[in-house]
């Protein structure tokens, strides 16, 4: 990478173009090169239903963190339209206070529809921001599906933002959103119903594992008026301390590396399998045989695996 030094110096054009390169390619060269310069950034995930105030919260949290003279990277993920492949990314509208701040870099990302690919891409983009010296990386995603839960996995602290509107807590439990929450906030608590939601959430959290020493705080916020944001930032900092003290910080990151390694191996094997070991037409023949019960999936898998181990040659 010819601009590595510029990236490390947080030159904004270089960060932006490196992210584009990483986002549009499956090549891992850049990531390999920058990796030794990463590991410093603390990752905070903000997730929750559409319109719950995530972007407004990110803006408010970032402003608080900036007071400690920190560098902040923001990744705001919004869905790609499944029909056109385009996307309307509007999170910056709520982050105008930060647009010109020297120590802030904001990037909007579209999900681009690839199953499981989003979480991977988001991690890669976060890695670029990490290399550029960001102290905190805030990742905003719409909390509705499995993908967002995957993203939570790379975040050190995940904040789930709900609103008092009816049904939010039940929906959040159903989709598994609460399971990934380290901190839950009731945003828009200027609206009616925040006390009821608080009760429901407390009840839900009471059922959680009591042995864990983190108390899963539930906080009320009004993001548009900066109410409760200081408390939220303090809880994020406490959570960080807790993770480090309990060694979960290290453990989680090692787990993520392990996942990454396996993911990449599997990807390569799958590619190699298709390209060099068994062509689609060969496979089709075997499928036909299987359909006629002249062969079976178990035998075929074993044979193909053997061929893989033999460097592409069948045993017999």
């Amino acid at each position: 990478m010819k601009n590595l030094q510029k990236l490390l110096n947080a030159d904004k054009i270089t960060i932006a173009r490196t992210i584009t390169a990483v986002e549009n390619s499956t090549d891992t060269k850049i990531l390999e090169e920058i990796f030794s310069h990463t590991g410093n950034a603390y990752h905070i995930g903000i997730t929750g239903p559409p319109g719950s105030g995530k972007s407004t919260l990110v803006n408010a949290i970032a402003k608080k963190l900036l007071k400690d003279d920190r560098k902040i990277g923001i990744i705001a993920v919004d869905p790609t339209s499944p029909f056109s492949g385009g996307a309307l990314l509007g999170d910056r509208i709520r982050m105008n206070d930060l647009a010109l701040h020297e120590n802030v870099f904001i990037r909007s990302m579209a999900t681009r529809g690839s199953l499981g690919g989003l979480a991977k891409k988001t991690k890669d983009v976060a890695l670029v921001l990490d290399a550029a010296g960001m102290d905190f990386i805030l990742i905003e995603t719409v909390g509705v599906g499995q993908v967002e839960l995957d993203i939570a996995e790379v975040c050190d602290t995940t904040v789930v933002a709900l609103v008092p509107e009816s049904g939010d807590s039940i929906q959040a439990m159903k989709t598994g959103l609460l399971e990934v929450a380290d901190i839950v906030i009731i945003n828009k608590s200027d609206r009616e119903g925040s006390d009821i939601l608080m009760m429901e959430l407390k009840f839900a959290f009471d059922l959680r594992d009591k042995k864990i020493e983190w108390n899963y705080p539930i906080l009320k916020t009004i993001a548009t008026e900066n109410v409760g944001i200081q408390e939220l930032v303090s809880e994020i900092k406490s959570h960080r301390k807790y993770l480090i003290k309990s060694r979960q910080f290290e453990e989680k990151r090692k787990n993520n590396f392990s996942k990454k390694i396996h993911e990449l191996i599997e990807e390569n094997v799958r590619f190699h399998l298709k390209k060099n070991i068994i062509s689609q037409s060969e496979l089709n023949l075997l499928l036909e045989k299987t359909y006629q019960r002249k062969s079976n999936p178990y035998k075929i898998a074993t044979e193909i695996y053997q061929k893989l181990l033999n460097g592409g040659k069948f045993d017999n």
Partner: protein
Amino acid sequence: MKKKIRVLVGKPGLDGHDRGAKVVAAALRDAGIEVIYTGLHQTSESIVEAAIQEDVDVIGLSILSGAHMTLFPRIIELLKEKNAEDILVIGGGIIPEEDIEKLYKMGVKKIFTPGTPTGTIIEFIKKVIK
């Protein structure tokens, strides 16, 4: 993998109508483009900074306030200052014919006058970005 076209749609200046900008933004999305919408009342500085961080191919500005002869040149100047002059600038709004010529000379790539079908804008963007 084919690179996605990314376009920033913004409204610099003080006028308060963003209906036109929103219609264009939605049409671009429906044409498979990733649109970064920055909202109303943007300064030229914040538009350029956003365009750089988002690494867009095109900045599309909607200007109805009559301030086009100051806003467009300012944005082009800022892009140059930041070594990002490869980002194309296009615009829409009520802009008189003689000003359009001047703006093209300053480096604005294309001006679309009111009533231009969104299809024409999409076609233009897809043609210049390859």
